[in-house]
């Protein structure tokens, strides 16, 4: 049992990990074919996993409706939404457009899916405002620096702000756009690169931990 649950999966991870790592240094066609093959296998596994996900989704919402749990009415919309896309897709043969215009699936995409998706994305604008308000509360020295940088950026992006800057600080011969450019290309990039270097090194070490079987929590423990 330990062989099947632990050693074989670890051997598979090690083999494919080393081969994938080696493929970075081996440009040969064999290496390219291997990468494509693994990618195809990933798609196959993904298709089956998606089926599992769908079953999990339906099972969970069916239970909610059956048990009349809190908010069970929303679960009905999962099935309604699913059918509202799948039935038109079936009728239209998976095509969104035809010679005569849009198909039923195209209509569902345009007037249901896209409308809902755009609405959700539009909400982001309001959340950004409330987040900006929260971040502008100066609680520490760092928050003050953040506030100053953000304030200059906001000021420089609107014509009124530029006029105010020119009338108050015009004598410095330093335009607000120059300051913004400096903030974005010097301190912002420095911080960003520092984070990115840390992330890259962390990703390399995490990969080694998985390839060499040091980290095997995803397999369960003995």
């Amino acid at each position, binding site marked *: 049992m330990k062989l099947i649950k632990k050693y074989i999966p670890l051997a598979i991870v090690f083999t494919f990990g080393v081969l994938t790592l080696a493929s970075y240094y081996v*440009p040969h066609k064999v290496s390219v074919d291997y990468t494509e093959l693994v990618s195809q296998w*990933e798609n196959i596994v993904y298709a089956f996993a998606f089926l599992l996900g*769908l079953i999990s*989704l339906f099972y969970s919402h069916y239970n909610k409706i059956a048990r009349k749990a809190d908010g069970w009415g929303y679960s009905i919309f999962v099935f309604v939404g699913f059918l509202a896309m799948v039935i038109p897709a079936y009728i239209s043969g998976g095509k969104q457009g035809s010679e005569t215009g849009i198909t039923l699936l195209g209509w569902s995409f345009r007037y249901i899916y896209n409308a809902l998706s755009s609405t959700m994305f539009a909400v982001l604008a309001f959340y950004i405002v409330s987040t900006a308000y929260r971040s502008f509360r100066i609680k520490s020295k760092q928050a003050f620096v953040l506030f100053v940088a953000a304030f200059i950026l906001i000021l420089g992006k609107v014509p009124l702000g530029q006029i105010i800057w020119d009338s108050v600080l015009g004598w410095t011969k330093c335009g607000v756009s120059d300051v913004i450019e400096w903030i974005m290309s010097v301190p912002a990039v420095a911080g960003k690169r520092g984070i990115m270097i840390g*992330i890259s090194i962390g990703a390399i070490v995490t990969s080694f931990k998985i390839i060499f079987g*040091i*980290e095997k929590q*995803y397999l*369960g423990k003995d």
Partner: protein
Amino acid sequence: MYDSMIKNQFGFVLFSVLFAAINVSAAKPSQAVKKQTPAGAIPPIENLTFADMPYDVGGTALLKWDVRPTDNPDVMYQIYVSSLETGGWIKADEFPADTRTGKDIELPFWAWNASVKEHVVKVELPNYFGEARTTGPVFNFKVVTIKDKKSFDSGIVSGKTASNWFRLDRLNNLLLLVTIITVFFWAVSHAKRKGLFIRRIAGLDAIDEALGRATEMGKPVYYVPGIGGMSGISTIASTFILGEVSKKVAQYDTQIKVPHYDPIVMTVCKEVVKQSFLEAGRPDSYRDDINQFISQDQFSYAASVDGMISREKPAAIFFMGYFMAESLLLAEVGATSGAIQIAGTDQESQLPFFFTACDYTLIGEELYAAGAYLSKEPMLMSALKVQDFGKLVVMVSVFFGIILVAVGARLHWDPFVQVILNLFGAY
């Protein structure tokens, strides 16, 4: 008798010379055949050779010939390629004669002789003959020089491209990899003998506080693993954290919900959570609907999770993994619901949103370190030392790199600067 010996010897010498001559011409099939040029015309292209592009999958040819004194912007070169024995020429490239030398090929000094004394032109054969036909068959090439609307053909060179087995240009990367692997194994073996100090990470220390709060309030804990696939390092790191969080959740006998974007991640997380409940001695508390697939659409996922958070008002929410635009949609709703929020992602573009909307945020590498930090396993913790070593290497490289390149540029040591840049370049 003597005469016949001389004749035989002469015949043997003549045969040997002819044989050698044939061999020489056979050994250099890619050398162009020189043509007679009329007086007053542009001098002929010299030493036109064919070579296979090194360190590639195949299908790319390199044409090289000597730079001529007459090469200037008014003179143009045209490159022709053919897969037929005669004719069938396709124009592959055209450029001014004062461009395209060996220096323009972007390869490091240890893998390429970047000479400015010869023209080097890459011909991507798949662009003209398709992917399948470019490695194996012999192709013919010629260079046409154009000046004052007159054209002069070079000789024809032939050759075939091949797949190569090693990226010599990535040797610097390979050496760094070998060094890091060596340090990695040293650190892991060192961990067995000695414990290692790991600095406190406030976001991870707050996990107990968050779970305690959820237990006291009798409200669920939400763990959101993001929209990454299982091949993403941040998602893998997230499953490690989920293991530790769900173990504590099982110990505290509180509820946890894990909404998923990716069905493969869901399958892995199911195993992780089940195992954690088992390890905590509470297998009876495990339910299959802890992990729930939501949607594979970014905003549908965000809308659904937002709805669940708004209705159930969880006491604690964890956002760990790969996030994009939905990060703020989720974190802001969580903040409004009054939950204690701990986030971690390696997407630096989303970090500001988590900083402002969450109580604690793990920055990139802290997310990777979290599994080791929480499990306290010596081997995992020692691997964190490799991250520190990597950062040390980067810091030292940046420091000395800046000094050397600045000094080299100031003193106009161009080859020296090029060597430094090559050493730290990615190919």
